[in-house]
């Protein structure tokens, strides 16, 4: 009743000795995540929250059988940390770091074509399978176990939509924040396909925003490949064309695609109802279940 992570997932935290890394490693453990190691060059042999730290990810994987990594490494070193994770036998690497240079990510993107390790992020909140494991910075207490899969480009918007669902008693199978950067690992199509293949996910919520064409591509994928019902939300309906709204993803090119209208139309055409407000999204999900 989940995708990608569950309570068997063995997690290594890259950057566990830094402020954020230490804090969120603690939060993850508290939530019940099976954090088995940290990895920080030069800090091997230490312990954080009772978890052994290794100098390299490879050592952590070898010694502790880790199969997933969460990356809290400052932007200047995050590209290298992602490569380090991708070049091990991990199944999943989750990059939380915000502000990774785009050219670093273009190189990472190239490596992704050569490895079996899946990347989520960067600049994403991570993912959570409620009641089992969270990898990232999502506030665990707003989630509830259930059968709705959620995928979103925006972190805090995810929380908002989840809050609306949970408040109505609608739990989540897994919630995945894919991040809003121009170049990311797992995208909407990947996440939708995972949920489609998960027998326990009975409905999907997809939260997009203006900029790029990922939502349009996702809509086309849904029309052809997804039988699980999907409800949508698109942020940025009122953003003026040409203005940059926060992260780089949110640029309206004005050339027909990338606008909120184009995305909403594409989703509607694929049979996906799109809510005007987070509350309306929750209404749609209730209808679909």
């Amino acid at each position, binding site marked *: 009743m989940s995708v990608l992570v569950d309570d068997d997932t063995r997690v290594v935290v890259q950057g566990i000795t830094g402020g*954020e890394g230490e804090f969120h490693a603690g939060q993850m453990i508290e939530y019940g995540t099976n954090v088995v190691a940290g990895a920080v060059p030069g800090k091997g042999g230490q312990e954080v929250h009772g978890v052994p730290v290794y100098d390299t990810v490879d050592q952590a994987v070898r010694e502790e059988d880790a199969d997933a990594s969460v990356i809290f490494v400052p932007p200047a070193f995050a590209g290298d940390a992602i490569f380090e994770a991708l070049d091990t036998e991990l199944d999943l690497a989750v990059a939380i770091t915000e502000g990774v240079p*785009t050219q670093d990510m273009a*190189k990472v993107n190239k490596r992704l074509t050569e490895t079996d390790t899946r990347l989520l992020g960067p600049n994403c909140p991570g993912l959570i399978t409620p009641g089992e494991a969270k990898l990232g910075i999502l506030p665990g207490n707003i989630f509830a176990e259930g059968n709705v899969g959620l995928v979103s480009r*925006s972190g805090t918007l995810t929380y908002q939509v989840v809050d609306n669902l949970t408040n109505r008693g609608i739990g989540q199978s897994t919630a995945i924040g894919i991040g809003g950067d121009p170049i990311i690992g797992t995208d909407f199509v990947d996440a939708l396909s995972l949920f489609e293949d998960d027998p326990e996910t009975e409905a999907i919520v997809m939260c997009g925003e203006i900029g790029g064409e990922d939502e349009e591509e996702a809509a086309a994928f849904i029309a052809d490949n997804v039988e699980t019902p999907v409800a949508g939300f698109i942020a*940025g309906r009122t953003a003026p064309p040409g203005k940059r*709204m926060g992260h780089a993803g949110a640029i309206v090119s004005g050339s027909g695609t990338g606008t909120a209208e184009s995305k909403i139309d594409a989703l509607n055409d694929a049979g996906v109802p799109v809510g005007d407000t*987070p509350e309306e999204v929750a209404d749609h999900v209730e209808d679909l279940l």
Partner: protein
Amino acid sequence: MKLHEYQAKQVFADAGIPTPPSQLAEDVDGVLSAAGEIGYPVAIKAQVQVGGRGKAGGIELVSDDEEAREAADSILGMDLKGIHVDRVLVEGAVDFVNELYVGVTMDRGEGKPVAMVSTKGGVDIEAVAEETPDAIVREHVDPAFGMHPYQARKAVYDAGVDREVARDVASVLTTLYELWDDRDGADAEINPLMVTDDDEVIAADAVMNVDEDALFRQPEIAEMQEEAASGDELEQKADEYDFDYVRLEGDVGIIGNGAGLVMTTLDLVDHYGGEPANFLDVGGGAKAERITNALDMVFSDDNVESVVFNIFGGITRGDEVARGINEALEAFDEIPKPVVVRLAGTNWEEGMEILNEDLVTVEGTLESAVQRAVEYAEEGQA
């Protein structure tokens, strides 16, 4: 971060791309002395970052002192699409027979760099891309290898560039790619790349946008940033505070964390009949001081009649946010405009305990908070 034309030209010239002789000038005398050194005819070009400078009267071609004085007088100090012109570039005019376009950017959809060449330079290249997409040849680059020389040649020959100048154009494109790569470019463009009647190529304009996230490793570019700062006072302030901020036309000030959530808040203001005054994302993990700065930003906009503060904590903690709001508002004898606060997520209970509810209106949901702020704004306008 976008460089001014004169900065980008310098960067291009330093890398070996041919550019016309040019000098920056801030007054009429400076223009005349520059023109004297360069030799007429020269172009006088307003150094402001707006599109369509030429059509708006920001570029003039002059052939003697009298014309130069007149043009300098009219351009220096003019208001170009809202931006005050205080510097012009005086540049040797190039006698051209052809105008090409070359550019490098990141193709977000493909997740890789793309080099572009067109023989339809000198005009609005976005319009060319829209109307005759085949007139722009695109060559994707594997970022691990960088651009192979043959790729530059392929793009140039496929675009139909004359064989006489093809080698030089390919060389400019290669240099442009290397520059884009070395300097963490977002976009690097030359439009037009002029071809003279003796088969020289020369960059008559220069565009260079640098990835802001990479400025930490581009100290020279970062230094140019101050000079390149935007003309809008509020946006300058946002740069100082390091906020993602966009000023809009409405009267409901909006502060939130995370681009998606802030955009959603804007959308809801619109949905409930209000008009957003701005987009302001404090980012993740904001501490009290940052919250204080955000309120300062929004209050600096005279159009604002009410403020909605919407924080859903993940990495951001409700107690820090509450502390910041208290500090900002307690500094005033009288709160300038009503502030509606909605806190959720990490440490929201602690935040609610800290928050001085005498100074703000608290709402429990996003929808009710936005509705309340819209009402306040309507009352303010009334």
